[in-house]
């Protein structure tokens, strides 16, 4: 079932005419006939959760916006910077109007004066294409002054970042959008509050995939949407599968409909060269790694089911590691990523990522001691829960979870005692 990837059913839906021919912008027109609060309530009722990783209920987020403020913004987070995530790109390349329509509905719902689509710098070609699509929508009267005679005006802009993972974090993104250094802000005030959003105005920040779900909800109603997925994880989710699989790519499924095993073996073509699957990173480098046990493999892909196993669905950037992977090496690779991407604002993250990397390098060089494993475990633990944004926690995950699930991979490097499997 493709709610988002409609290009699979409708060729060239990226073109405005084709999109409109297939009911494009009807949801937006319907929304314009609704009261903004009813739009919010409909999205609330759908239980749509943010697809960027945190899974926060979208309608609730919109309802935080103080209606009394004259200037409000919608910011589309198209930074797509989580490791192993490549879904938003496909949406924006192949079904861009659905994003624009979703963003406009959100803008109407909170009565925003403008929509900013913040794209990572590498997406410059997508930004150019989006500009054209926005212009098409404008020509048809969906963007600009007095949209469709509603008396409400809204502009849509694209903006390119300069290449920082942290700018996918909403408050750092807002700083970057304002032309400032991409570092997270102190909250409260939250983006939805006066003083916390873009240029200090109340702002909704939503992921691309999240907003692409909105037209369906408005068009068909929350009840219809809730029929898809599970109670806590409504709708479809795009799973970005990469790593050791024969057929990597994006797969859209209703949440809960399939398990890891089905996704990896039935749809992503299984593991190359007949190798065994060893571990799964369900949410790129930022979510805790899990061993590919039968129990994990048979877990349905929902927010709630993954949480039961001590990990997160996150943005569902699923990276598969086969038996040839040394998890210590993987931990080191992930740590190098976070060290490179830490913005440097908070002490534990800035210093911790640097320190972890140094110790992991030592371990991989064969110069580590068993106590070094305890050391990195402790450094990582000290980074958790004490930073302004979640990057501090994310950066600790690759260490804490790898040591927890794969202690032997570490012990093999430091000459420590091997532990019995399953410990």
């Amino acid at each position, binding site marked *: 079932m493709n709610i988002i990837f409609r290009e699979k059913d409708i060729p060239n839906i990226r073109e405005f005419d084709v999109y409109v021919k297939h009911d494009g912008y009807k949801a937006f027109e319907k929304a314009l006939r609704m009261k903004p609060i009813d739009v919010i309530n409909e999205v609330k009722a759908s239980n749509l959760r943010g697809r960027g990783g945190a899974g926060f209920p979208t309608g609730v987020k919109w309802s935080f916006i103080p209606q009394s403020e004259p200037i409000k913004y919608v910011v589309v987070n198209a930074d797509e910077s989580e490791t192993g995530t490549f879904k938003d790109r496909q949406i924006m390349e192949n079904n861009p109007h659905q994003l624009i329509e979703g963003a406009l509905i959100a803008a109407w719902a909170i009565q925003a004066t403008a929509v900013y689509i913040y794209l990572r710098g590498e997406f410059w070609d997508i930004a150019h294409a989006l500009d054209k699509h926005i212009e098409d929508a404008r020509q048809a009267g969906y963007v600009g002054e007095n949209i469709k005679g509603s008396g409400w005006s809204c502009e849509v802009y694209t903006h390119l970042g300069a290449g920082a993972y942290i700018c996918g974090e909403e408050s750092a993104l807002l700083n970057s959008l304002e032309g400032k*250094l991409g570092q997270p802000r102190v909250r409260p005030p939250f983006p939805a509050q006066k003083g916390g959003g873009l240029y200090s105005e109340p702002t909704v920040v939503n992921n691309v995939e999240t907003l692409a779900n909105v037209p369906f909800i408005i068009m068909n109603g929350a009840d219809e949407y809730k029929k898809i997925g599970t109670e806590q994880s409504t709708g479809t989710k795009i799973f970005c599968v990469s790593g050791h699989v024969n057929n990597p790519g994006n797969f859209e499924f209703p949440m809960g409909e399939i398990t890891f095993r089905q996704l990896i073996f039935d749809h992503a073509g299984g593991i190359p060269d007949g190798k065994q699957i060893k571990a799964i990173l369900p949410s790129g480098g930022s979510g805790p790694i899990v061993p590919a046990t039968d129990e994990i493999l048979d877990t349905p892909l929902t927010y709630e089911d993954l949480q039961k196993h001590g990990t997160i669905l996150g943005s569902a950037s699923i990276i598969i590691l086969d038996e040839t992977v040394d998890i210590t090496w993987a931990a080191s690779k992930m740590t190098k990523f976070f060290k490179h991407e830490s913005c440097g604002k908070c002490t534990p993250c800035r210093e911790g990522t*640097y320190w972890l990397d140094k110790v992991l390098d030592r371990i991989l060089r064969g110069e580590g001691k068993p106590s070094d494993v305890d050391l990195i475990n402790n450094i990582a633990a000290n980074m958790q829960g004490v930073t302004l944004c979640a990057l501090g926690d994310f950066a600790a995950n690759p260490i804490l979870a790898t040591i927890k699930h794969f202690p032997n991979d570490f012990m093999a490097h430091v000459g420590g005692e091997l532990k019995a499997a399953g410990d």
Partner: protein
Amino acid sequence: MSDKVKIIIDDIEYEVPAGSNLVDMAKWYADNDIPVFCYHPKMEPVGMCRMCLVEQGSIVKDRETGEVVLDENGNPQVRWFPKLQTACTQIVHDGMVIRTNTEAVKAARENVVEFLLTSHPLDCPICDKGGECPLQNLTMAHGPGTSRMNYDDKMHLDKHVPLGDLIFLDEERCIQCARCIRFQDEIVGDDVLAFHERGRKLQIITNSDPGFDTYFSGNTTDICPVGALTTADFRFGARPWELTEVPSICPHDAAGSNISLSVRLDRDFGGRAMIKRVMPRQNEYVNEIWISDKTRFGHHFTRSEDRLKKPMIKKGGVLTEATWDEAIRFVVDALKAADGSVAAIAGSSTPNEDLWTLRKLVEGLGGGLLGAWTPTHAGADLVAQVGVGKGTNLGDLGQGDAVLIIATDLEEEVPIWRLRLKQAADRGAYLVVANARKTRMDDFASDTVRYDYGQAAHAMQNLDAAIAKKLKEANNLIIVAGAEGLTLDGSRALMQAAANFLIESGHIGKPNNGLLSPFPGANGMGLHYMGFSPEATLQIMQNPPKLLIVNQAELLADDPFAAEWLNKVETIISLNLFPDAVSNMAAAALPIQSFAERDGTFTNGERRVQRFYMAQGPMGEALPAWQVFSQLSEALGQGHAKLSAAAVMKEITENVEAFAGMRYKELARVERQFPDVGGEDLYYGGTAYQNKGGLGVQIETSADKGEAVSVGEVKLPDSPKPKKGQVLVVPVAQLFNRQSTFKPSVLVHPRVPQPYVEINSKDAARMNIKTGDLVEVMMADQIRVTVQAHVNGGAPEGAAVLPRYLTDEATPMVLTVGEIKKV
């Protein structure tokens, strides 16, 4: 701030002002030093160092009834946050509960210190900050005893990065707290520092050319919580524990910034006490904890080898070294010979004690004119009547208040006022800046007013109706009126017009209301109270006396026309720090001590009388000027000489009404100041010093006392009119210049501009002059200087702006008609 809320810190309840910061309140009310690195009580919190983590919760209240929910023991139930919270980002609220002494908090602090030290070089033994370093202190208090970081894993970075000519960055020591960046951005408004890169590579850079281009850079070294930022002046100069702190007052401008002179017995000064650095001393009324770079780096003149070190008297037409006894006898004879035709001119940084004893000497000889130098700024008498009310604190101005700045470039004249008034505008005060040209303050103004040079008083009387209305209706209004582009008459007219405006709108006689003026020097108001006036100076110039005493006033360096009338004076007695053109003409040139070598007081522009203390060993045989005058008086049979500055002040209190109650003991009084910066608590506010020398006492205005005020009739003077092909040449202030009291600060030389004149682009086009061209500026048909042209719109059409004290030659003190020619 009057609303109070109840918060609980470590099980004890405190009542604190609503809306205030938790770290500040914990310190002020509970004496609980929540450790911080990035937080600073003068700046917005950023919550980035994570040192201030505490357990935080709220007392649970029933949603319906609002009653406090109790637990089984009958204690209020507390809902705790699941994670530790940064105290610095918390605004106190009723029912807030925090714990700062739990295991979780201790562990968090230890962890943050450990993280910070992983990349820190730990080079305390050679670090200037060692001994007064927040990182060192908080490590001792909260850190782990040992390091788990391999030394070889430390990141190595550049240790001597000049951010500008005055400040060096040690990249290894920096802990990325951003205090320096935020200070420049939030407090100063010169956002010349920034972070570069990210993660562990995050580094402070300067993005201005020249680097760190601001007049306030030194303050960043005080608030830097590590030894990352050091001054070119002090680095590797001494260890903090070798230094003795002597309270003092900045001798350079009307702000009267409270400073601390860090001295030690030094090899470089013959084993005598020597100033190693100048530090801010907290006075929330005056300069808070900030000082300008001129205040900080402008102390070298006190030890200049060019200082006059021995008394000189004319023997056979030649100035010859003499003993003090000889010199005193010589001067006494000269004074007697003058037959009562005696007058005195005192420079604007002459301390009150010197002014008083000089006045007594002149009065003892039958009286004579007492001139204030430079005779450029009128209206000190008006400031005494309707100046800012007693208790004024520029730091209190904000929403609902207003400030008008007219005919002055505060950035160049009184940088601390500029800093504080900029912040008043940030807090919501309505700031109007009026001048004939754009000045730095325009950048912070709500409205700007332009008038033609010479027309300031007229502009003051004819303000745009909407602007005038807003000023009049403000809760509090301060007018800062200078003398840029004005003659002395014009200055008086402006001061009168400003006083009238304040009187008419009722903004006098109460704190945060009234008149201010950026008088040159440190004691412009003191000159007035001691009876010296610029009007008397003009009379002296017109009618030179037989004998003229010139104290700390470089008449010929300041005024190219002075030679004309000085030549008519038979006998000049010169007292100065340096031999200058006046002392060369003098019958006696007597060496006097600078502010650093003696006790004394200055009266600042806000009429605050403030003490400075003896800090440095004397230069040669120099004496404090009050002592010289006092001895001369005694030799003339006018009574016993005073033995101490304190005794002179006692006499002043008995004779000058404004100074009643200003005994040294009173001036030395201190009180606890908020925020509680200074002292041992370096982690909180930086290395600004606690005020142990006195907050000074502000003189009441006539309006404060409810006395009648008299402004006098405003006479709008004619201003010089240039003819075709001529321009008005307007002298303006330049903070970094080549005056004798600043030139010896060699380290600032790269920042002192080459002599230049600003010319309007239209005038420049007409004269075919481009930026960088050498031009000759001819003034009043006789004064010529050759300077570089700056064509940048800084000057209005028809005017050429010539900064003072950049050229070697003296240039006119007030505006003149002149011509400009390309060389």
